[in-house]
């Protein structure tokens, strides 16, 4: 004779169908304690802060590049100095510096080409 198990499938099913797990606080109480205030806070209109310095980094980079190019063009020293010399705008100090620079440059000119170089450098500037 087979021994009947004390806990058969049927007995287990019967027991578990009438059982439950302890859930603790009632859900309405949890709603009142936690969710009511939570939702009220979330629904409160948030103050809008407008930043005057809303920096867009792309514009910053573009502006930097533009400034660099402008500075390079404007501050090209030799060309600028020549232009100013042509208009008689160079100061005494600037004239001396320009003279030194020209003297150094002349050292690299071949003797046979010196006259052409001199004419181009000084004479034509004065005439024009």
């Amino acid at each position: 004779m087979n021994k009947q198990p004390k806990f058969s499938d049927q007995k287990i099913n019967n027991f578990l169908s009438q059982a439950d797990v302890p859930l603790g606080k009632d859900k309405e109480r949890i709603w009142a304690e936690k969710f009511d205030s939570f939702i009220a806070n979330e629904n409160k209109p948030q103050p809008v802060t407008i930043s005057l310095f809303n920096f867009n980094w792309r514009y910053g980079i573009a502006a930097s590049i533009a400034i660099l190019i402008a500075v390079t063009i404007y501050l090209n020293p030799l060309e600028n100095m020549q232009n100013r010399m042509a208009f008689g705008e160079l100061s005494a100090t600037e004239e001396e510096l320009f003279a030194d620079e020209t003297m150094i440059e002349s050292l690299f000119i071949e003797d046979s080409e010196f006259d052409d170089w001199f004419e181009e450098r000084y004479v034509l500037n004065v005439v024009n």
Partner: protein
Amino acid sequence: MTEEDFKMIYDTHFDNLRRYLYYRSGDQDLSEDIAQNVFMKIWKKKIDTTKGNIKSLLFKMGTDEFISYYRRSKIEREYVNSQDFKLVHQDDDDDDFSEKKKMYEKALKALTDKQRVALLMNKMEGLTYKEIAESLNLSQKAIEKRISQALSVLKNNLNSL
């Protein structure tokens, strides 16, 4: 999502989620905290609950939160095994019954949490395999297997106590 819609979802699913989390953890406070966090996320992130299965989504979020909690506390299975798994029963007032109830509690605690979840959702809540599969985002076959294994282990545990 309006507050009314959210309250309706809460009323329908909060206890189911809490119950599911208790099946897994055996910890009432933890189940309640995680269930609350899940619903707060639903509201905060304005998750669209009209598309798809909301119950499945809630259970998935609850599972993810639960697993995150496990990882944060770094004690995985030891945590579950340290918790007593409790039941409430309509015959609780019967003293003779309390001994039997303790046996069930002990035997259920010895199951894996996945087996326990599937078994109790089927036996306690009366959900079909299909409904459990949809809630847990698993196949029906997987649920069938888990419940079959759970019943077998539970029966062995009870009969050996």
